């Protein structure tokens, strides 16, 4: 295996990881059925490509990609308040198709011919696959740190409560609308940023790169890894990008094996391979604990208390 090939795969894997993380904010943390993330990926990709082909700075182009995509995301967020789960899923699928059609027909997006980008230069470095991989990985680390922080903030708690039960969240005085829209903005802005990186790493984009199948692919990554966790989408994105290359020896049967694995996974582990409730994850955690027993965290204590509480509760239930 030569290094260019390896870095090409790694660059793709890191880009899809970032994209999967963006979807995870909307679908995993806020629980909104987003099936059209590729539309926002595309908005970012085209925005950044248009700017750099007009001699704009690459980093500024990425910023613009985030903003434009986030603005569209805010509109979708507002719309999402009106729609329940399946309707939202279909609406976002629809948005994906409409945006792909728009990319394919606007003059500024190059129409059917798409847009050709040149490799950007950051701090004097001409970006190749290795630099794109490093750049994106740094972004992934930053995003992960921010998400971890967010999860422990008021915003994260609010999102979790919305995901569990929007009605109850509302009755606790949480402004559900505000947080839900915010989740859409953050998620889509991140998708836009990823798109900006993607269009420059590929050198050429056309509307088919942002088709519905891409959205499905990203959803699959999150679901296979485990929605609503950080490790899940990362794991899923890496596996689903690397798998087709690993299966290259069986060119003709790749799609079939890929699809079969998808079905088996979802059938036997709908919570994802590394989801919180997944037996694989529990096993791994158990293994880790055995090797290095650790201090009881607050979460463990709460869990223990809850267990104790459960006994009391069931006791009361018995009397009634």
């Amino acid at each position, binding site marked *: 295996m030569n290094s260019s090939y390896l870095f090409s795969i790694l660059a793709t894997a890191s880009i899809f990881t970032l994209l999967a993380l963006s979807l995870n904010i909307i679908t995993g943390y806020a629980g909104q059925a987003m099936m059209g993330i590729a539309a926002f990926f595309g908005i970012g990709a085209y925005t950044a490509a248009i700017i750099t082909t007009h001699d704009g700075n690459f980093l500024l182009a990425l910023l613009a990609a985030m903003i434009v995509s986030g603005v569209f995301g805010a509109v979708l967020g507002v719309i999402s308040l009106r729609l329940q789960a399946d309707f939202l899923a279909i609406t976002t699928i629809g948005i994906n198709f409409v945006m792909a059609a728009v990319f394919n027909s606007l003059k500024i997006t190059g129409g059917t011919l798409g847009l050709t980008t040149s490799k950007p230069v950051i701090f004097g470095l001409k970006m190749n696959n*290795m630099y794109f991989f490093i750049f994106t990985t740094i972004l992934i680390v930053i995003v992960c*740190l921010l998400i971890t922080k967010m999860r422990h903030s008021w915003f994260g708690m609010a999102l979790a409560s919305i995901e569990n039960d929007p009605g109850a969240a509302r009755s606790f005085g949480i402004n559900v609308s505000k947080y839900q829209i915010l989740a859409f903005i953050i998620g889509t802005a991140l998708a836009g940023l990823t798109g900006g990186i993607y269009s420059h790493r*590929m050198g050429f984009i056309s509307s088919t790169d942002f088709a519905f199948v891409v959205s499905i692919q990203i959803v699959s990554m999150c679901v296979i890894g485990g929605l609503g966790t950080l490790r899940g989408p990362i794991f899923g994105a890496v596996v689903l990008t690397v798998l087709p290359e690993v299966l290259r020896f069986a060119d*003709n049967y790749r799609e079939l094996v890929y699809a079969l694995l998808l079905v088996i996974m979802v059938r036997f582990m709908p919570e994802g391979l590394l989801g919180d409730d997944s037996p694989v994850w529990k096993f791994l955690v158990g293994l880790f604990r055995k090797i290095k027993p650790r201090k009881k965290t607050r979460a463990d204590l709460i869990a223990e208390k809850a267990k104790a509480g459960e006994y009391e509760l069931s006791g009361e239930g018995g009397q009634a």
Partner: protein
Amino acid sequence: MKKFLSILLILCMVFMFAACGGETNEGGEEGGGEAALPEVIKIGFFAPVSAPSAAADGLSSLNSAKLAVKLINENGGINGSTVELVDMDDGLDTTEAANIAEKLAYDDSVVAVVSGSYSGPTKVAAPIFQEAGKLMVSAYAVHPDVVNAGDLIFSQSFPGKLQGTAAAIYANDTLKAKKIAIISVDLDFGATQIEAFKAQLEKMGSDAEIVYEQAIAISDSDMSSAVTAAAAAGADLIYSVNYYEQAAQVLREVGQKGLDIPVLGTEGADSFELLNIAGEYANGLYITTNMNRDDQNAETQAYIENYEAEYGIQPDMVGASVYDAFQVLFAAMKEVGVDTQAMRDYIAGMQNFDTVTGTLIRYNEDGSAVKPVQIQLVTNGEYHSAGVIDDMEVIDPANYQ
């Protein structure tokens, strides 16, 4: 969490070092070896074999690539060296195409590459090969910018604009069309051809007018509304810039509705699949293409015969184009060996090279082929020659920049 992130970072570092190590190793293995031909000459190849929507063209491409390699080896190889095909499936996915391109471009045993894929994958792969210093011949990708990636990229088929121009000349001069309806596929294939078609009509001062125009998504098989509207607009010619599936549906619509409007198609309709789907309604279809099945040229007849014998089906334009891309490479290797620069110079200087898809007059400076445009007419369920447009004014891509 922090632990997890640091592990992630460390993993990345390890990957990088491992990769860099790999690079230096490989650089050392191959070194000289320019003078003599290697015992086994490897030629890279990619086509969309596993994507259900593109697999028909993918398989035609792969079949032809295998046939080309098999025949050259049966006939003594390249000056005694055997040719080996390194075939890859791009699944019609540009990110996969980028991976494959990196793999082939930096594999030192692969001496040149043929693209048997569509515009998207080929367009993404071209700059990668250019940068790696590897020669690529694109068989049938129509995107006009493929060849602009650099001097190592050639296109074996003529540009879409040229075909549109030839179609306009034929529609005006021979078919005497006055009211033309355009039904085209909403892709670069359609867009480039109709643009050139309209420009040429204007340039010629033709009195033909465009009475109806509709771009149709590649996924759509329903042509009833477009054909009905074209007929209602009084069209006396339908210019169908579609691939075979949709072109066949246009023909079926015209035939079943009993409309007496001739249809002019493109190389996209040059497939046995069209004849199967449209059946009797295919008769009377004109197409602009590069393959002349009536050509008594030994190359063409041998290819058709061999392909049918090997696979039991007829070859199509896509397959023939791939076969020719290999013939171009074989010819260069026989003369100048496998050095990239030598091959490049040889191919750039090729003149009047006989291929299955017509005489390759020469390559234009940008790397696109200069070829006469064949007009074929379907009669009795077979493609037959109905003319050729070989005016250098028209077919020289230099005139379309």
